[in-house]
């Protein structure tokens, strides 16, 4: 089974997103000043952080794959020369 490059970061992103979603839902079902302000400030920040963390994991994964492919290409290119 292939594991994500940073399982901890990914789990953290999921937890952050769940907290952010909880704050958004809180503001929807109880629209008083504090829930609305918390959801529109802290909720947004946590949600954005979780998405950025996910994107960073995907970017790291892509970079790792790219760096694995490049040496192979280089190796095949070297052997192809007479």
């Amino acid at each position, binding site marked *: *089974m292939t*594991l994500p490059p940073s*399982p901890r970061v990914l789990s953290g992103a999921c937890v952050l997103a769940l907290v952010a*979603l909880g704050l958004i839902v809180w503001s*929807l079902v109880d629209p008083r000043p504090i829930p609305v302000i918390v*959801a529109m400030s802290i909720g*947004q920040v946590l949600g954005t952080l979780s*998405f950025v963390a996910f994107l960073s994991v*995907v970017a790291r994964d892509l970079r790792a794959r790219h760096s694995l492919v490049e040496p192979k290409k280089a190796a095949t290119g070297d052997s192809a020369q007479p």
Partner: protein
Amino acid sequence: MRQDRLAALLHTIRPRPVQFSGKALGGCLFSHYQPLTIAALGCAFASACILVGFLVIRPAWSTVTKAVLLLGLGVFPICAAAAGNVQGYERTKARAFCGNCHVMTAHRDDSDDPTSTSLSSRHARNKLFGDENCYTCHEDYGMFGTVLTKLGGMRHVWLYYTEYRNTTIAEAKETIHLLQPFPNENCMQCHSTKPKLWLEIPDHRETLNDLRADRISCASAGCHGFAHPNFRPARDATLDPAKKAAGTL
């Protein structure tokens, strides 16, 4: 006094019932008047299912997993936040929202009262103002008016929780005042001061320049009266005959 403080504290910390404007139907809240709320809750639920599923199952790191996580961490939360923000912003315009702080309850109740003859209540009965009469009158107009109004509202919330949270309603009438005088420009968004009929009123004609320059307030004791019956501007001795007589103000 102590009971007042306790009541104010309870008002702040007491859990409230879920406030949908829809109807309770078969034990479920059915809020067909607020499609954005349903959309936001649906997106949040879908996202939560994906995220909890990922945390529990821990699937292999494949393209499908990435695509599903993109939905769970990106698309659905962004939709939920966008719909929630719009809904939250709309909620902040409602009179009920302003009346959440106990020091505003007297003003809110007056606006809710269909028999009240105060300026604010009469405006609340106008369809153009309706349930959003606080926001409509106190909104700053102009290019950044909405943003500035909401920033001012944030300041109100901050001051409420840091200074006025335990203030009794009786004390609030004495201690809480407007940051700046209410600008006539807000009145003039509707009452432009230009129609012939308006200018035919002698008081309007005589004070026209002062009104437009904010030297005289439309909502003052000598003109249309204060908008709220419980309102008492700072350092205005004319409203408190006892203090005026005692020379305390």
